[in-house]
């Protein structure tokens, strides 16, 4: 164990130095300009009937809340391409939080894991699946290369968006990997919680396996209200980068005491 810790420290120090560069490469001064318009209706009549939905933005401090419009974001995928939410208005969108270093994600994307087939399957049904990684770049699983390797190894075809400063994860209140969210065609957040009731692929006792994301999608498609709109997410905690402002506040509090 000592060896592991020493080596980890050495690598962590190395990673912290390198993290700045990676974060710099991934961060953005201003959100990339994206088409936030809903899909253009085909007829002028339809144009009159449909109200233009404008999603609130994470950059403006919007927080995700069940039953409300989901906050839009501007992230980059593993190849540096823009990833946002508003351009998918009109489609069901699943957000799934990932950390390739988390055993729950490794299991879910591994052989017989729920995520091995689910994103591709629902994509064929017109659902958009966005995987988001809010891990600090210096930490396990937060590096672009590690994510690329993970995607290749597990045949992940869906978009993996990097959220190095954790702003999107914090805005959605993502606590675990894999924490999942389902947004309906109108941009409303209708599900937040666990992927299923089977952490590490195992259900407790003699329960029947339920995939909550699939269930939410089925409810939306059937025009029903999502029956299970919130569950307790399971998994590893999201390994967020430290927030400078928060640290300052803590220091102020300490000083006041």
């Amino acid at each position, binding site marked *: *164990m000592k060896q592991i810790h020493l080596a980890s420290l050495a690598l962590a120090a190395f990673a912290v130095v390198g993290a700045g560069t990676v974060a710099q490469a991934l961060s953005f001064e201003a959100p990339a300009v994206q088409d936030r318009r809903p899909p253009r209706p085909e007829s002028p009549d339809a144009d009159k009937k449909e109200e233009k939905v404008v999603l609130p933005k994470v950059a403006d401090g919007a927080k995700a809340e069940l039953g409300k419009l989901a906050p839009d974001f501007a992230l980059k995928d593993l190849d540096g391409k823009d990833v946002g939410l508003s351009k998918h208005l009109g489609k069901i969108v699943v957000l799934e939080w990932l950390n390739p270093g988390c055993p729950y994600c490794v299991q879910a994307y591994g052989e017989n894991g729920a995520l091995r087939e689910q994103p591709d399957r629902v994509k064929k049904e017109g659902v958009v699946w966005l995987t988001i990684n809010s891990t600090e770049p210096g930490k396990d699983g937060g590096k672009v290369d590690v994510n690329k390797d993970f995607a290749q190894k597990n045949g992940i075809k869906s978009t993996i968006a990097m959220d190095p400063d954790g702003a999107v994860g914090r805005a959605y209140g993502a606590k675990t990997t894999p924490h999942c969210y389902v947004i309906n065609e109108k941009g409303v957040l209708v599900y937040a919680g666990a992927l299923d009731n089977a952490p590490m692929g195992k259900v407790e006792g003699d329960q029947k396996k339920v995939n909550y994301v699939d269930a939410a999608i089925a409810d939306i498609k059937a025009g029903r209200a999502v029956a299970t709109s919130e569950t307790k997410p399971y998994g590893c905690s999201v390994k967020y980068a430290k927030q400078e402002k928060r640290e300052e506040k803590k220091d102020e509090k300490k000083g006041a005491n």
Partner: protein
Amino acid sequence: MLLPALCAAFAPLVATIQDDEEIPDGNTLVKPSLLADVDSIVAGARFELLLRFELEPKWHVYWTNPGDAGQALQAKLKAPEGFVVGETRHPWPHRLDQEGDIIAYVHEKEVVLLASVVAPADVVEGRDYEFSFDARWLVCTELCVPGEGKATLSLKGAKASKPANEALLLAARKHLPQALDKLPLAKLVVEGSASKPVLQATVPGAQELEFFPHLDERVKMTGRTREAGTSGAKLAAEFSVKPHKPGQPAEEPRVRGVLWVKTAKGEAAYEVALPAKPKSP
């Protein structure tokens, strides 16, 4: 010429770091063992089994309510036929605040769970009785790894028994939450509304308070504030109560958890289970 020589010189070091960076084995980061507070089994006698988990430094496992992330430490105890095994009791955890407002309830260093056992009347002297448990855990530091393990204990039937593992038992008992009536000076009331009740706890003489909520499908702690002064400490824990759904138990929702109290004399914890509905004025 110099570069290849340098590479060759550092090659063993690089290899070590790479090897050591492999994900640690979750099965060996936690060492489970099974002990008893007696050295042998007497017919009809009650004794305690101690389910001990020793953790590698800086790693933690999770309480019965892991909090926002993680997975509870699970142990399934097996006893020979005829032995009556009581509920496994867990010590209070400590709260771990992580970035992103992630709150976890964890155990570090060592966890000892206790289970009371009553031996049957037909215990045979000299016969071996085997007890065991299978356990699963998620053990975390900067990274998390799942693990599992098993521990066994063999005790002989006898006419009389001697105490064993007394210091460990004493320490384990000290860390178990007690009944709330053992804290007579405390004042606990539920205020707020039926959907957002607030547990107000005031403990004279306390230096610090904490509240560890139990897992509950309907009643969830959403936050807590704490105050400490010269006369005592206060805690206000806010909860949200989900509406009752068909199929759920029809019991009245309760604010349930463990109130941890630190005084000049030491620390202790108390089980709390109060109706989540505020009393009308």
